[in-house]
């Protein structure tokens, strides 16, 4: 049995290993970037720093999905929507920071609004010039959407594939909406041309490294939070809901409440991931809402291994690294590889890489995961439909 305080989640062995590797890698990259001059063989370019930052954002997003899919059995095909909403909230703050440095030099209105002949800022853009307000919205907007959507869906017991399909419809509808210029989020082009964040130029190496560190810290924090949630009493009920929702309900648990809280927490984490992602890549557009993105995210988690948390992180980083490499060498082969990965993982490796490692190297498993019991992972055939 597991102790369920936050402190113990922080100090358990898996968390320690995870944070050790994460911060080790981040610090290494940071030092290599900052200390060595650009012409040195050991120098790590700003591009690599940003790339790593991007991977860590994806990892955070995958972690969020693993929380609902791996532990609660809710396959959300719309988590990309929460990610993108967080990203848009951050993008709006960054747009307001541009001030009169835009192409049209209008201090009040972002360029695209000037282009559309708008005379004043829409009401929902007010407040986004303050970082605290934007930060609040980054948490609030995805959280609120997930809360309302989940409240409606779980209360009427929409489960399984039905839930997956309506979450997909949700992100699809949002994508169509954000493509419209009239909505006031830059339409097709989205938000871009960002200059600085909290006064620091986004182009400088220092800011990039700082953003990478911030992402790493957020990821570590989210990891510990997820460990804590899954280890707590709430986490145990959530596992029961995943494995046999009706039985949990019959025993007397309001299963929809548990699902709702986990779903909302997960959406907030996804929103944070989006908010950290946008300043690093420099753009947010409606393409982030596309159903393909959300479904690709599911495969990261599946590749890494569900219901392990660190599996999701490993999967996200590996698949995206593969994507970077593949699209560089032979772009037309990437979709074949991704498609093959979907099929291979679901048919041959239902437990993902983590499951494979555990199966084939029992000694390794004993050494690394002594404190981690196996009972919180679904068996390959055991999941209810």
């Amino acid at each position, binding site marked *: 049995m597991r102790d369920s305080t936050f402190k113990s989640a922080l100090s358990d062995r898996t968390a320690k290993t995870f944070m050790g590797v994460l911060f080790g890698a981040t610090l290494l990259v940071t030092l290599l970037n900052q200390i060595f001059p650009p012409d040195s063989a050991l120098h790590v370019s700003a591009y690599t720093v940003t790339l790593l930052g991007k991977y860590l954002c994806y990892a955070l997003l995958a972690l969020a999905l693993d929380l609902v899919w791996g532990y609660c059995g809710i*396959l959300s095909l719309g988590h990309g929507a929460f990610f993108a909403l967080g990203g848009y909230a951050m993008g709006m703050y960054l747009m307001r920071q541009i001030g009169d440095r835009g192409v049209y030099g209008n201090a009040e209105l972002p360029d695209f609004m000037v282009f559309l002949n708008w005379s004043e800022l829409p009401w929902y853009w007010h407040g986004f010039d303050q970082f605290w307000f934007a930060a609040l919205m980054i948490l609030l907007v995805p959280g609120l959407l997930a809360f309302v*959507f989940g409240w*409606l*869906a779980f*209360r*009427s*017991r*929409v*489960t*399984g*594939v*039905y839930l*997956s*399909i*309506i979450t*997909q*419809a*949700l992100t*699809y*509808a949002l994508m*169509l*909406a954000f*493509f*419209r210029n009239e909505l006031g989020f830059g339409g097709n082009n989205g938000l871009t041309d960002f200059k600085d964040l909290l006064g620091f130029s986004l182009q400088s190496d220092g800011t990039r490294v700082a953003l990478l560190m911030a992402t790493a810290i957020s990821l570590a924090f989210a990891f510990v939070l997820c460990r804590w949630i899954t280890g707590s009493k709430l986490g145990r009920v959530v596992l029961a809901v995943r494995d046999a929702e009706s039985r949990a309900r019959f025993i007397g648990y309001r299963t929809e409440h548990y699902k709702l809280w986990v779903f909302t927490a997960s959406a907030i984490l996804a929103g944070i991931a989006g908010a950290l992602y946008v300043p690093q890549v420099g753009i947010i557009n409606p393409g982030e809402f596309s*159903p*393909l993105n959300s*479904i690709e995210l*599911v*495969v990261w988690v*599946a590749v890494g291994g569900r219901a392990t948390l660190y599996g999701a992180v490993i999967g996200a980083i590996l698949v995206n690294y593969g994507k970077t490499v593949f699209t560089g060498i032979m772009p*037309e082969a990437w*979709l*074949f590889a*991704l*498609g*093959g*990965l*979907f*099929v291979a*993982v*679901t*048919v041959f490796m*239902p437990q993902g890489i983590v499951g494979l490692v555990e199966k084939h190297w029992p000694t390794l498993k004993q050494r690394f995961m002594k404190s981690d019991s196996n009972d919180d992972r679904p068996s390959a*055939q055991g*999941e209810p*439909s």
Partner: protein
Amino acid sequence: MGDTFSRILAACLLIMLTSLSWAEELLPEETAPPQTTEETPAEEIAAPLSIQDILNQLTERSFDMKEAAIRQLAEQDSPRVIPLLNALMERELVHNRENDTISLGHKADGEWQLLDPVSEQPIGTVNSRAARPVVINNRLRTVINNQLALFALNSDNSDARAEAAEQLIGNDDPDMLSALRLRRESEDNARVIEQIDTALNIAALSSDDLTTRLNAIDTLSRNLHPEVKNSLNDRLRNTEVDAEKVALEKALARIDARIENFQTADTIFFGLSLGSVLLLAAIGLAITFGVMGVINMAHGELIMLGAYTTYVVQQLLPNSNEWSLLIALPAAFLVSAVVGIFIERFVIRFLYGRPLETLLATFGVSLILQQAVRVIFSPLNRTVITPDWMSGALQINPVFSLTYNRLYIIFFALAVFLGLLTLLKKTRLGLQVRAVSQNRTTARALGIRSERVNALTFGLGSGIAGIAGVALAQLTNVGPNLGQSYIIDSFMVVVFGGVGNLWGTLTAAFGLGIANKLLEPMAGAVLAKILVLIFIILFIQRKPRGLFPQRGRAAEE
């Protein structure tokens, strides 16, 4: 240099010509009739003129003389009259100045190639400056057009007659009107009669007699021809009589109300058309998802394969676009069914009972299929040629028409639906499919080979997706993303209608199609789609099992 010069020359010529024809039209009218009347008796006395002789009168500078010649030509009983009048319109009748005769001519290599106007035999070439096309002005053009319309009005082909009568709508030339009246007496084709009546009634609007005018207004109030509305509005501006004003306003209101009704009908037709597309796309899914419980995210790509099969069949049979669809249909069914069975045998079979994993694996398959098509056919869209019998429209009245391709696709979708329904309800395979979907273990105990039934059912659903692709190829571009754009909509239709219920799928497809098109004029296409999606999301919260939920024990699984 030479080019600029010739352009300037042409411009000068054009200005001269226009001013000439203007001047001609400004001439006092009294001078024209005496000349005509003088000439006509003279010709009647003389021996009948040959066509060549009449044509030669066109060498005259005066437009009145030319008009007389044209009218004379039109009276000739010869098959050459219509081609020659057309040639005059097209500036292909040429005045040869060397011997002062008129002949057909084409300009080639800086010379005029002359043809005999009657026999169309070549009669030699002349220098480009030695001949000029016969010049006509707007008045003569009207005369020629009217003469041509008169010929068409008396042709044996009823389509040509109707077209001619329609062309004469709004024409107030008394000769034309009397010709129309004459034709009206002997005409027996309803369409032609309708057009003639419209033309005569519009003419009657300017009659001096108030009763005639009021009768005409009353008759015209049931007519939707655009010219009718214009003429009524014109009359409303000019009339002084109160009774006529009231009648006109009433007639216009009536016409507007009818136009609005037909526009609603038009919207509903488009809704039905969209609904039939949705039905075609969703019906295969209704089998694989609804009956077998398998989430096939590659369904859209199976539709795409059907569309590409149509394209390939057309490429293989380039000269038979009219009937290549008949080959494309079974071919598309086979291609998609075979691919579907492959997917079932090599992927889905291992994942029965794990719907979420099936969803992911089939999504992977869809990516592979898309990319394969991109590699084989290029990422660009391909065009499928629509056969002639599917292009054009069924014109119900001037404001309402049904395009044939959409009409056929509605019927086709219904036919596929009924065929599938029969297959499931009346055949042995259908019985087995239903048995396996209701209770696999019991079905197996009764000797049904469930593995084989699964493969065949999946093949059937996939094959129908292929057929849907053939139909969709007639409406949209065929490209690698064709399937993706339909997959979410298809799932919405199946879930909204109620999984496992084909009638629900039918209702949902047409309901959503019509709702979408009704919202479009108010909200715009994209917003309409978003609203429909939000509606479905909310609806599923209220009724998670769709419009027509399955009842009984199978439903709670």
